[in-house]
Structures are given as structure tokens and as C-alpha cells.
């Protein structure tokens, strides 16, 4: 039942979060709010920052709560359409000002409520995908915890996709998977074994580009380890001209 242990680690609300990563990476960061259509969705945090006091970056990430109160405010890291539309707005802004986009993912999936449907969660995710596929700036996505379904890939159509060692990325939660296939969500751990949702399995399937080892690092240590890795990756992507980068991104997702 090793895969399911990873699932549990990936769901730990004390894992490295979007906000912790932003604080480690940026010497200054301004969070920007709202989708300009409906509201400000708190499960998606986005804004503009500086790396090393000089290099602008747009960061958009999904934030779970660390306690019940915060979790309710952040809707347990499941965003409705307004969150994805805020992400789209900030991506277009990054495009205009020619700065790279880093996305940080930790969601069990998009919000499944009547309101979410009413305001077009399908359309919001679809447009996030289109927007990401058309960005000419360098893009990097890192899955910090859970990478659940459409709500995760909506922010992961990037030049490079990385996963933390104990994160997961899947088409559906193992519980959902087990209940669809065997009509029994208690078989989740069996489902997890079959689903190839761990970072190492996904690297082997060529779905992701890199696994970030977690070892026994604290959140601070892990974030500190990631900072130079992110900086270098974005710098490398920047050396490639935009058309080549776009063609590469196309091929990256064309191969599946």
C-alpha cells in the first residue's frame, strides 16, 4: 500500500504551501485580487513579485488552509470558476509585461457545487488551458501536494512540470476512482496502487519533467532548496526564443 501512503502525505495540510514558496522565492510580492467578473476566490492566490530584487515574476498558486477556519475561507483548496478566471487574468497580465509565470498546484480538484456549475467551471478551466497554451513567456508548474484532475491541469499546461517527491497527480482521487470502477470508495488504496499517481511513476511515463526530492526537509529547507532550482529553470527557458519555446511546449503535450 505504498502509493496510498504518498496520497496521505500529499494531502497533509502542513506541507510546503503556495504562500510559503512565494515568501521564500520573492524579495517582494504583491497579492492581486479578483477575477473582474464575479469575486475574489481565496483558494487561488496570485500576484506579482521580484526575484533577487530585480526579476519580475507572476506567481499563481492554490492554497489550502492550515486550520478549519482558514480551510473554509480557502474552500479546502478547491477553486470555483472565479479562481481560474483570476488566474487567466494574471497570466494575460504576465504576457503583456513579458514576465514568466510560475504556477503552484495543490488541489483535490475544482469545486463541485451547483454555483460552480452555474458560473461555468468547465468554461473557466477550458479557457485557462487555452490561455496557458498561448502564453509566449516562460512557464513552470510545480505540484506541491495534490494534483487533482481538471482543476490541476488547468494550471499545468507549462513548458516544464515538476512534482515534489510526495505529491500526486491524477485524473481523479483514488476514492473517486475506486467508487467509479468498483462502486466502493474504501478500495482507494488499491486504486492508488493502480493509478500511477506518484511522482516517480509519472516521471517514468514522461508526464512530468522532474521530481524534487523532499528527503526529511522542513518546509523552510525545501523552499530554500527549490529557490535556486526555479531561478535556474526560468533563466534557461528565457534563453530560448519564444517561438521555439511555444513549439516545444506544443510537442511536450502533443506526445501523449
Amino acid at each position, binding site marked *: 500500500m505504498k502509493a496510498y501512503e504518498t496520497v496521505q502525505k500529499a494531502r497533509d495540510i502542513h506541507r510546503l504551501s503556495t504562500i510559503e514558496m512565494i515568501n521564500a522565492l520573492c524579495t517582494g510580492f504583491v497579492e492581486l485580487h479578483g477575477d473582474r467578473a464575479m469575486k475574489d476566490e481565496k483558494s487561488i492566490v496570485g500576484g506579482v513579485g521580484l526575484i533577487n530584487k530585480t526579476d519580475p515574476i507572476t506567481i499563481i498558486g492554490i492554497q489550502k488552509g492550515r486550520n478549519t477556519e482558514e480551510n473554509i475561507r480557502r474552500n479546502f483548496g478547491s477553486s470555483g470558476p472565479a479562481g481560474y478566471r483570476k488566474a487567466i487574468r494574471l497570466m494575460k497580465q504576465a504576457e503583456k509585461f513579458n514576465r514568466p509565470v510560475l504556477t503552484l498546484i495543490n488541489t483535490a480538484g475544482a469545486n463541485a457545487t*451547483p454555483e460552480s456549475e452555474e458560473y461555468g467551471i*468547465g468554461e473557466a478551466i477550458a479557457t485557462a488551458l487555452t490561455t496557458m497554451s498561448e502564453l509566449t513567456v516562460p512557464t513552470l508548474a510545480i505540484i506541491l501536494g495534490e494534483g487533482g484532475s481538471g482543476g490541476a*491541469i488547468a494550471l499545468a499546461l507549462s513548458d516544464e512540470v515538476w512534482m515534489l517527491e510526495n505529491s500526486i497527480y491524477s*485524473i481523479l482521487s483514488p476514492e473517486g476512482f475506486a467508487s467509479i470502477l468498483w462502486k466502493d470508495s474504501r478500495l482507494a488504496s488499491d486504486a492508488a496502487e493502480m493509478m500511477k499517481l506518484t511522482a516517480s511513476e509519472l516521471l517514468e511515463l514522461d508526464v512530468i519533467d522532474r521530481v524534487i526530492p523532499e528527503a526529511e526537509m522542513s518546509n523552510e529547507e525545501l523552499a530554500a532548496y527549490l529557490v535556486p532550482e526555479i531561478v535556474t529553470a526560468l533563466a534557461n527557458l528565457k534563453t530560448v526564443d519564444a517561438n521555439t519555446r511555444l513549439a516545444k511546449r506544443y510537442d511536450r503535450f*502533443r506526445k501523449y
Partner: protein
Amino acid sequence: MGFFRKKKKYVPITPLRTEEMKQRHAQIPDDLASACPGCHEIIFKSMIGQDYLCPKCDYHLQFPARERVDWLMDEGTFREWDQEITAANPLEFPGYDEKINKGQRLTGMNEAVLTGQGELEGLPFAIGVMDSRFIMASMGTVVGEKLTRLFERATELDLPVVLYIASGGARMQEGILSLMQMAKVTQAVSRHSQAGLLYCPVLTHPTTGGVTASFAMQGDITLAEPAAIVGFAGKRVIEQTIKSELPADFQKAETVLENGFIDRIVSRKKQHQGLHFLLQVHQKERTVE
């Protein structure tokens, strides 16, 4: 008096010709008649016309993909693309091969989508039709590949795309690779769009999950068939989340139109005319050769 009280309320009949009856029953095809999902009346197969409408209430019944193509396009103009690509089992998922075989037997197709090009009243376009009898027309690697090629080739040939969508969403048995199809198809739709070409999805029953969250909602003009379910999360999943029942019109195309995500609902009787008009409006100026 007990004698009278024992009188039964029914008369037992011994079926005398069981074998003969069984044989006769066996000769009746299973799909001779079925209940219309709309009006619940019994409709005989022979009563259903070429457009697969319920003869009693005009309910839009499930339309087999190949028949839909024949019904829609000018006779003899359809040329199929990538017919030979067959569903595979990339993650060697147990029981999946049997599901694929069943889908193939039911539909006579290699996978859940049919693609190609043809004409409607003389106007050329590329077309895709998904067939929900094939594993709910869920999207795995082959459906994603055929749709990607549809948009790529349409871009090369400078053709608009009309895509009849029906899908249960991403195909579970191909796991994460099905999720990747959302990105793959999106990219091809985007390139087609950037070439200034029309993409007109027609949402049919049901259009759900990862398909709604990608190419079903990336059209220039989005049409839908009456009463089609169009949504992202399944109704039952949402009901479990909120622990109460949802209204009957939840995720119905008519509701989704009211919410602002569909341009028009077009019944089959008006689809030839409607699509022809849109193709005409978006015809690219072609240099006369």
C-alpha cells in the same frame, strides 16, 4: 365450508409449449422497442426516422455517429480521416480490453469518435462526431489523438470544424494519460483558432467532465441539442457534496444557455440550415484557382 374458502384468486396455467415459446422469444431482437427517455412512451425501432427523434415527443435520441454523418452531410462527400487508429490499453488496465471490444462491436467503430471532411450544401468543412455508445465516448489517448489530428488537418486545409460532442469525460482506464488529452486537444484547437478558422461545437447528450473543461467550451459559436446535459462535475457527485437533491433542469442545455455558456439550442430539424448559415457567414475568401 373450508372447501369454498380455499378457492384461489388466480388460475394456474401450465405453459404447454415452453420450448416453442422460448424459440419464438429468441427470434425477437432485443432492440426492437425501447422507452423514450423523454416521454417514456414505448417506441418501436421501425418508427424512428433518419434523424433519431422520438416520433411521439421529438426527444433527441442517441444518434449513432456514422448515421449522423450520413444524415448531415451532402451525399457522397464524406471522407473519413484516421479510421485505422484503434483504441489501445496503454496502462494495461484490467478489464479494459473487453470494454473496448464491446464498444467496437456495438458501434462498428475503432474508437468513440469519427473524424473527416465533407460538405454541407456545397460548403466544405471538417467534422468530428462522438458516439456515446462507445464507453460513454470518454476521452482516452486515441480519442484525443483523433481530435488533435482533426484540428491540425483542418488548420492545414483551411477548413472550419463542426464537432458533435458527447462524452462522459476523461477515460478512467487510461488514467493520467487521459487528463493529458485535455492539454493536447486544447493546443490544436488554439492553433486552429489562431489561423482565423471557425470552430463550432455542437453539445449533445451528455457533455461532461474533462471534455466540458476543454474543447467543448473552446468554440467560437457553441450550439447544443435540446435537453442535453452539459456540465463539469456529475450531478450525483454534486448532490453528495451538498447533501441535497438538485432540480431536474440542473445542467440541462436550456439552463446552461440561461447561465451564458451556450449560444443557441438547435433541434435536429434545424441543424442543416443552422450550420449551413454559420459556415456561410464564416467562409474564408478563397483565391480562385
